[in-house]
């Protein structure tokens, strides 16, 4: 057998004494980078004015907001698809090769998109940022998950929460960084309003930044366990010591129940995120608050920023709390409390209670982020560690579906209410009641989750490197 390359799984097995607290930063290096996707909206205005050169006055030949919105949609759909398709490959080759593939695809997507911007060819941008970059997103998102769970069997929620928190934090870095880079390149006279040069620069920055994760990541030896760790002795029927393969997981009702759980939680959260800025401005306008006291566009941007912070904090807080509370109870809180809070939002808007409204929205978004971060640990509890990355990848198709479904529901219901003559907070009333209804479905699905039937378990010890020997 030829000597294994540095990228092979067998070359990433940690030696004795390797400190497991090096693994979360390695995972964060990937998630902080790919989290840039949530900041893509900062490019929408400049991309929509490449011909005219003035974002305030686009030319007829400029790309429209609808055309530009498709870039992000393609990326999110490809995220889900590639996570589902490449999950088993990831489990076979290990996290280092997968992280490198993610880095090459994600940064490569920027390079191709830069060419598309330079040539003013939207199809090249779709292919670059959307397809190639989207594949990088999907592989990168799931690449550290099973490794983290193997290193932290005693704190699965904390470990995956830290990594997935990075996906929320990535946008917070990328947004001001992208704006600063565009300003710099615009004044340097590089053309395309600095967008192409910014794409190239971001591609280089992310390629280098992600290398830290690629070369730091290690998998534990098969028989490694944290000092003093004693595996569960089945006090909790929902935490298994067995293993279910990714293919078998698809045959279980538990997988599809969790698919519904993720779908409903994400769809409802998107309902708030999608509408956050216009929602708070329309609900608390001068007409509602009094002349000169309404929420301005700048304050609404602050509201969106606050939601981003709680999205980030919720990923770590709720996921860590789930280690103590149990995953099923944690999701029951997301849904139970969520139903009450979503149903409360229209009333708070109607009564013009801004402070309480902001608090409620922040709690809702913290649970939206928490839902993302807790799901890998839930999967690991139910299906074991064996192919949890691949199973997680397949479950992320629920995210892609929610990415399409959420905005469709929100826009349809909001437009319908406006057509009926409702304005302000009242125009969003059915949106929030519908989201609360969706959470009822999620609550029932979560309630129905039970231990996986033993017939789906792998027989005998599982190979950590299937097909790799």
């Amino acid at each position, binding site marked *: 057998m030829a000597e294994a390359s540095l990228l092979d799984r067998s070359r990433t097995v940690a030696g*004795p004494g*390797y*400190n497991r*607290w090096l693994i979360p930063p390695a995972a964060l290096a990937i998630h902080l980078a790919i989290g840039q996707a949530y900041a893509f909206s900062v490019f929408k205005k400049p991309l929509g004015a490449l011909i005219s050169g003035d974002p305030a006055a686009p030319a007829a030949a400029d790309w429209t907001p609808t055309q530009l919105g498709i870039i992000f949609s393609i990326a999110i759909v490809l995220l889900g698809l590639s996570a589902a398709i490449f999950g088993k490959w990831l489990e076979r080759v290990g996290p280092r090769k997968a992280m490198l593939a993610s880095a090459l695809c994600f940064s490569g997507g920027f390079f191709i998109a830069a060419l598309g911007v330079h040539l003013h060819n939207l199809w090249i941008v779709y292919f670059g940022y959307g397809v190639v970059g989207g594949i990088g997103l999907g592989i990168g998102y799931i690449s550290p998950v099973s490794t983290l769970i193997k290193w932290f069997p005693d704190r699965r929620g904390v470990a995956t929460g830290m990594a997935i928190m990075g996906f929320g934090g990535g946008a*917070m*870095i990328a947004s001001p960084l992208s704006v600063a880079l565009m300003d710099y390149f615009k004044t340097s006279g590089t053309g395309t309003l600095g967008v192409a040069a910014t794409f190239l620069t971001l591609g280089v920055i992310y390629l280098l930044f992600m290398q830290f994760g690629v070369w730091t990541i290690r998998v534990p030896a098969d028989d490694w366990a944290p000092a003093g760790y004693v595996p569960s002795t089945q006090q909790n029927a929902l935490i298994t010591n067995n293993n279910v393969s990714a293919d078998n997981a698809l045959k279980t009702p538990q997988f599809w129940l969790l698919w519904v759980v993720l779908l409903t939680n994400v769809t409802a959260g998107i309902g708030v995120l999608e509408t956050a800025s216009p929602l708070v401005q329309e609900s608390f306008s001068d007409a509602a608050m009094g002349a000169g006291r309404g929420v301005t566009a700048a304050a609404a941007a*602050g509201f969106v*920023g606050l939601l981003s912070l709680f999205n980030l904090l919720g990923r770590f807080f709720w996921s860590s709390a789930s280690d103590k509370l149990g995953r099923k109870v944690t999701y029951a809180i997301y849904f139970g409390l969520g139903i009450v809070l979503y149903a409360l939002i229209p009333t708070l808007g109607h009564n013009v209670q801004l402070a309480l409204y902001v608090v409620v929205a922040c709690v809702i978004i913290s649970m939206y982020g928490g839902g993302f971060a807790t799901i890998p640990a839930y999967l690991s509890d139910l299906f074991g560690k064996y192919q949890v990355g691949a199973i997680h990848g397949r479950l992320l198709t629920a995210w892609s579906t929610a990415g399409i479904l959420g905005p469709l529901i929100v826009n349809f219901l909001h437009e319908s209410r406006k057509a009926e003559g409702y304005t302000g907070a009242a125009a969003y009333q059915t949106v929030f009641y519908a989201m609360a209804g969706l959470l009822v479905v999620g609550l029932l699905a979560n309630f129905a989750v039970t231990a996986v039937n033993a017939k789906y378990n792998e027989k005998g010890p599982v190979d950590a490197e299937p097909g790799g020997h």
Partner: protein
Amino acid sequence: MNQPPVSSTTPETPSSGGAVFLAWAFVGIPLLWGVSQTFIKALDLFK
């Protein structure tokens, strides 16, 4: 597998504390910068 088996009770060595600190700083500094920028923006809501 090339590596020798590792004891299931292998302790985590404190000798790599510096490396752990540097690794967390590498990802933590940009993250804190991003969070601070977002926090400053969020303050506009309360003005």
